């Protein structure tokens, strides 16, 4: 314990004393995070218990891994896992790269009016609610009254009941996702592109590099860190793939491909009140998710020295 550390300690004390009002101000926020985020994490223990509401979370008896075993032996376990991972992977493969490409294209427009229009219009669907978006899907794709089938009919094509077709569920999910969020998702890449040193482009032009080559050799490496961070965040949410939208898109005819883990948790837990079993399924989902996040982050750190923390 030298003099400096004593000084440090006393300056810490004086900071806390001086700023006691900041701690009072911060207390409700801390309390909020403890109650609404950490208490539910404590509640995760019911995944290993036979939860009895009258005995509470702490008082219910432990039963070990029973709920997990039951889940793994469920007749539709494979389907749930396949649907969840399949939808997520499909969604990332399509809706992750498109905003990057769109950002490159918008960036090349320069500061004209067309650029403003493209941006304003493509950002707008982001603010439409999930319920309205799915409502639009059903309305457009209705076999009898939907505009898509009306136009198809005029062209002499058969009407297709898109929403009832299990084979089309994933594609409809992904394409509507692209339609709704591409513009908004490109903002972050546009910002990264704006930060690239214009001198790099000037000297590349001197060397005779055309726009495509400059996008490939300057812009892409320039925003690679942003792309990697966004990819880590996206993969880290792989199992969280849109509960609300999937639930709303489900109907009795597309269950086979449209049932994913989170919607199943909702049905088992909230609708059937099997709290412990549903929590175990959800925890399985969360753990896979978190593990993937850590893995991708670790890989990115190893190969590109970019990581979330």
């Amino acid at each position: 314990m030298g003099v400096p550390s004593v000084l440090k300690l006393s300056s810490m004390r004086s900071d806390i004393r001086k700023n006691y009002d900041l701690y009072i101000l911060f207390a409700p926020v801390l309390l909020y995070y403890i109650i609404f985020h950490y208490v539910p994490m404590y509640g995760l223990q019911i995944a290993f218990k036979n939860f009895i509401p009258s005995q509470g979370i702490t008082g219910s008896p432990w039963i070990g891994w029973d709920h997990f075993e039951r889940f793994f032996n469920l007749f539709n376990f494979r389907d749930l896992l396949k649907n969840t991972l399949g939808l997520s992977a499909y969604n990332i493969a399509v809706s992750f790269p498109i905003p990057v490409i769109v950002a490159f294209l918008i960036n090349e427009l320069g500061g004209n009016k067309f650029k403003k229009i493209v941006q304003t219009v493509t950002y707008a669907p982001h603010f439409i609610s999930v319920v309205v978006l799915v409502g639009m899907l059903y309305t457009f794709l209705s076999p009898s009254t939907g505009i898509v089938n009306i136009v198809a009919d005029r062209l002499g094509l058969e009407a297709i009941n898109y929403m009832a077709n299990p084979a089309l569920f994933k594609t409809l999910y992904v394409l509507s996702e692209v339609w709704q969020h591409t513009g908004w998702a490109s903002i972050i890449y546009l910002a990264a592109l704006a930060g690239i040193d214009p001198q790099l482009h000037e000297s590349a032009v001197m060397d005779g590099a055309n726009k495509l080559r400059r996008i490939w050799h300057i812009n892409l490496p320039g925003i690679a860190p942003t792309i990697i961070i966004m990819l880590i965040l996206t993969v880290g949410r792989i199992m969280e793939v849109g509960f609300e939208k999937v639930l709303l898109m489900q109907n009795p005819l597309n269950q086979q491909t449209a049932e994913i883990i989170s919607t199943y948790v909702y049905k088992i837990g909230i609708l059937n009140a099997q709290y412990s079993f549903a929590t175990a399924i959800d925890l399985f989902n969360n753990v896979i998710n978190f593990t993937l996040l850590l893995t991708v982050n670790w890989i990115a750190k190893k190969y590109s020295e970019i990581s979330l923390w």
Partner: protein
Amino acid sequence: MNNTNAIRIKSSFGDRIFDYVNILLLSILLLIVVLPLLFIVNASFSDPDEVLRGNVLLYPAGFTLEGYARVFVDPKVWQGYWNVAVYTVVGTAINLLMTIAGAYPLSRKDFRGGSLFMVLITFTMFFSGGMIPSFLLVKDLGLYNSMWAIVLPPAVGVWNLIIAKTYFQYSIPNELKEAAHIDGCNNIVFLLKIVIPLSLPILAVLGLFYGVGHWNNFMRALLYLSDENKYPLQIVLRQILLQNQISGASLDDITSAVERQKLSQLLRYSLIIVSSAPLLIVYPFLQRFFVKGMLIGAVKG
């Protein structure tokens, strides 16, 4: 000399082609985004028969306001509208108060323990208790089936907290704080009299983010509300837009069924417009603020 000239001409020719292709591609994108929206607006003002015949696409046909008239006759829509307005106002007010209360201390270097709190808070972005423990918590706290179940669980968003913290950190000069301290101004007074007035633009952006979130919220209402008369707009929308679609096929009287189907179709278009109208109207004016907010967050994230 000749050589470099040739290259310049060649590359600028290539670039010109690139520019044309680029404008073409983005125009296609623009159409893909605009057409569905334009169609809904037009269909909501058109005779459903014309829509069925495929005559409505770029402009309305057989102009009518019947869809809108019918939307506003439905008391469920009014109730949902009123409820979501209340949840949005109360929820956003709580969001802003809590976000300021959290972000300001965290933005101060002399707030000891701040980085530890930050880790605790950020962790919740990546791991959570999930649906069932949160549901049980809401029940245990006695919030189930009340407005508080809708507005309290999302009281502070991590992302928005980081945006506010970053803004306070970089746009409130430290000298201001020191000067205020010398004048005997304590932290709370400084926050109220100086920090908040200087941060109104970012607070407006955050208010908008939170407000849109409340307006569009569906999941919490689905999980935490059981009384129909407390349902916000999105739940009512689901009932009309989605649940009719699947179950409303069997109707006895054929002629009236056809009429009903047509009208329900028109009503859907109008309802989509009515429910999204508040956002669609304010969006063009506020777009640059939304983008700004998103970018401030990205600097740190």
